[in-house]
């Protein structure tokens, strides 16, 4: 079983997609000879040519809008948005057009467009390069949103996204692009359903739900909590829309406490949605309120203070302390 980084796993997943589906193509800025600013598409233009790996004009609305047209013609475009903070010129096309096309056509039209967005902070970058805008898209019906946290998931999820007949946004944890792990390129295994959450670590006293870049942080926090005698279950959500509430509910019914951690600001975020749903589904199992760990209600701060903004092990441990104080 090969070991590779998340970036390489997505690259291999895209390679498998391009090889297997002649109607699939990649579109984006600098994804050709350069291989993308994160080299995720490295080498693909050489193998598949410029009609399949398309260096586009520098225009995000144009990328998404033309991808919609290609999908209407029967193609499966995979769009790369260079950085999270640059998706907004394409926001109109995503929310008013892509998300609604199937519904407004009474199901006659499908637009299987995939949008790859490297997201999240922790890379010491400049403004607009470290954001987590997933909740803005999760609020829009018609879109599916997934985010891998490890190479095996990344390899399969990008291919599953392309195969899905609905529009899929795949948020890629950019600070984990170089995280290595084993990828079973023969067998999807538990990665078979991209919209299902995974219990990565079993526990009995509390549940921590995380996704994307915070999954390793949640696992580390659980290990630290174990030293204090607390048995913490960790769930990798994997899919942000839809959310696998069954898996989260079952866990909370066992542990009685729930922490949700994400880099995005907590206000109006995915953590709030999970807290609300779980309070309805598992009210009598809860020993404490659901506690959110996330970014603050501010524009993503400058790189020199981002460590104070981003949830880390201590922030999750502090939330666990609060949960156990009830």
């Amino acid at each position, binding site marked *: 079983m090969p070991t590779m980084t998340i970036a390489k796993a997505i690259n291999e997943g895209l390679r498998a997609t391009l090889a297997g589906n002649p109607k699939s193509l990649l579109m984006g800025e600098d994804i050709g000879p350069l291989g993308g600013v994160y080299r995720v598409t490295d080498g693909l233009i050489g193998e598949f040519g410029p009609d399949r790996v398309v260096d586009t004009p520098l225009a995000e*609305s*144009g990328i998404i809008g033309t*991808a*919609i047209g*290609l999908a209407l*013609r029967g193609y499966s475009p995979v769009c790369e948005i260079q950085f999270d903070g640059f998706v907004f010129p394409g926001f109109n096309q995503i929310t*008013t057009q892509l998300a609604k096309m199937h519904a407004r056509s009474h199901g*006659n039209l499908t637009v299987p467009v995939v949008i790859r967005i490297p997201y999240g902070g922790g890379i010491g970058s400049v403004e607009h390069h470290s954001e987590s805008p997933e909740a803005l898209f999760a609020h829009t019906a018609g879109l599916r949103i997934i985010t891998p946290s490890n190479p095996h998931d990344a390899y399969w999820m990008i291919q599953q996204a392309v195969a899905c007949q609905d529009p899929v946004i795949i948020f890629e944890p950019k600070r984990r692009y170089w995280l290595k792990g084993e990828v079973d390129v023969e067998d999807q295994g538990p990665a078979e359903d991209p919209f299902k959450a995974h219990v990565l670590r079993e526990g009995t006293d509390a549940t921590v739900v995380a996704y994307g870049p915070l999954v390793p942080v949640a696992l580390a926090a659980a290990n630290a909590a174990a030293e204090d005698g607390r048995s913490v279950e960790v769930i990798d959500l994997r899919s942000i829309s*839809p959310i696998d509430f069954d898996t989260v509910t079952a866990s909370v019914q066992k542990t009685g406490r729930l922490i949700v951690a994400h880099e995005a600001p907590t206000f109006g975020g995915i953590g709030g949605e999970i807290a609300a749903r779980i309070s309805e589904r598992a009210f009598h199992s809860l020993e404490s309120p659901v506690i959110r760990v996330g970014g603050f209600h501010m524009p993503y701060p400058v790189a020199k203070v981002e460590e104070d903004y981003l949830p880390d092990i201590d922030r999750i441990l502090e939330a666990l302390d609060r949960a156990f104080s009830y």
Partner: protein
Amino acid sequence: MGTHLPSTEFDGTAVDDQREADAEAVMGEPPAQMVQLLAPDGKLGTDPVFSGYADKLTPEDLRGLYADMAAIRRFDVEATALQRQGQLALWVPLTGQEAAQIGSGRASQPQDYIFPTYREHGVALTRNVDLAELLRQFRGVSNGGWNPKDTNFHLYTLVLAAQTLHAVGYAMGIQRDQKLSAASDGAGQKPDAAVIAYFGDGASSEGDVHESMVFASSYKAPVVFFCQNNHWAISVPTNVQTRVPLSNRAKGYGFPGIRVDGNDVIAVHAVTEWALEHARQGNGPVLIEAFTYRVGAHTTADDPTKYRQSAEEDAWRAKDPLARLEKYLRAEGLADDAFFAKVKADGDELAAYVRRTAHDLENPDIRQSFANVYAEAHPLVAEELAWFEEYSAGFADGEETAGQAAKAGH
């Protein structure tokens, strides 16, 4: 006429031409460089390029163009009346733009794909869309209304200019289809279909028009941008959107731009046929600016007396697209009273059909809305639908339905 030969050359002199035409465009006067074959007085002129296309139109074709324009105008009157009577929530009238729409639509071929705005009822007619289906959206029973795959006429798009990018992407798909087909059976690589993207002078200011033209030019996509400059974006005149003729913008992107008299159905047909051929042959995009006028309101919610003079409307009525073709057909002996009487009778029949059908359009069930959010199964949608069913069932014992209860404020 005569100096407007399409060119992708950047010769620099166009800038002065643009300035000159600017004032004319704003005042509604025909600019110097505008393709016109059929003048308002019904006299047919010539053009070094486009007469060749116009000459292909048979008397039967010409009568057909007239009949189409008359039919869609009658339909427009009927739909406006249906709105006034509360049968439609809103209507978007096209009167004045019949030649631009019928001429361009009739120039397209079945394999071409059309992306309309929300006013292209005339184009819809040429694509054999059931006109009663057009009313669905305005009656509030659908956000679409027809299956675009049946007619290659896409759904109306209400977010201005969003469809111009879809059109270019679709055209990029046609290009790839040709290559895939060539790779599999060795057939020719020229695109045999093209795409038309409709938009208006108001939407021309949207960034998506710019991006669509950049993409189309870069990839030489087989797309015709068809801008109906009807002079008013609701209440804002064209000179707020542009200081140069819109057709001249094509030069900046490196493809031909042609301004055509949008009230001259013969010229519109000829220019569009040329542009579609140009695109299908793999020569890239074309911008057509159809210089026309929205004689009525933007929508039935609008009041043009608040922002423009009736004298302007009168001046444009004198350039009416139907009147000039009628003059020509009569003068040339191509149509007689009996023809025009039949056209009128057919129009009334169409209007009656549309009225009857609009009344009969059934309200949809919200379950259909649940069904079409996603193409594949979705647990949240399923959960909410299940809740709705249970909630609705709670009203089953009484006489009220859930909807009635909600309206009553229960």
